[in-house]
């Protein structure tokens, strides 16, 4: 622990917080329950002014095994984790990592240019760029008076 810190030395809570964090770390919680209780893979969604960025944690998957499709605003990710295939179950001493094939469909909350999607895969993290459809100006639609309306008036 640092004996002296610049600033905020009056804030006793910071030290308490750190101490609690340190104690909690020693509990060595795995995210197992948390991870499996949710959909796989876990995703984060970010917004930039003209794009949406979707990132997904998919370790152990090769780029060529990933499939990505979009149709009518629904993005579907699918892949298979192949790295533990050749190990028989009785050889495992510990098994916490998710395995097997998976598929996940996501409804994209805004309209995106489905033909302009790009994706990259680095160190087990998939990043998908979804360019938003540019907002168009409201277009005035001219209304023409119908002939049937006139005819009705005359009678």
């Amino acid at each position, binding site marked *: *622990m*640092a004996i002296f810190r610049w600033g905020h030395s009056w804030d006793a809570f*910071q030290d308490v*917080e*750190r101490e609690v*964090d*340190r104690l909690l*770390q020693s509990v*060595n*919680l*795995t*995210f*197992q329950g948390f*991870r499996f209780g*949710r*959909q796989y893979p*876990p*995703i*984060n*969604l*970010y*917004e*930039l002014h003209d794009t949406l*960025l979707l*990132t997904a*944690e*998919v*370790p*152990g*998957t*090769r*780029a060529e095994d990933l499939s990505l499709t979009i149709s009518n605003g629904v993005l579907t990710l699918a892949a298979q984790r192949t*790295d*533990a295939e050749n*190990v028989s179950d009785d*050889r*495992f*001493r*510990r*098994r*916490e*990592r*998710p395995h097997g094939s998976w598929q996940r469909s996501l409804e994209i909350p805004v309209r995106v240019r489905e033909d302009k999607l790009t994706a990259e*895969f*680095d*160190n*087990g*993290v998939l*990043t998908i760029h979804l360019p938003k459809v540019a907002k168009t100006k409201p277009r005035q639609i001219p209304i023409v008076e119908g002939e049937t309306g006139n005819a009705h008036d005359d009678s």
Partner: protein
Amino acid sequence: MSEDITKSTNQARRDDDREAELAAERYIITPPIDIHETDEGLVLRADLPGVTKETLELQVQDNKLTLFGRVLPSVTENAKLVHQEYLIGDFLRSFILSEEVDHDRITAKLSNGVLELVLPKAQKSKPRKIQVNID
């Protein structure tokens, strides 16, 4: 952000210091692992998405193996987070190695965010004959 990275790779920094800093600023995530036996020893695999060769530290001290992997942000800072299912943080986990493991022959490989550690069994020492000299 780049300042933090140089700090963490600086081996001269005291561990206590670093721990305090990380606890205060970043999430520590325990990565899920698999361990399986082979004829030669043990194989340990850990999911470390976002960790690169440069941001991974592996350390064996006495019989404790510690892995620490930093995750650099994959999106620019001006990106606004609108939906979150996983935390961006650093992976940390340590293991006690059994007596069987040959510490000097441990090898590590990182690919697609998965660390694979091969922990070979120590070669059983051959029986050695002790010559008895009679005076």
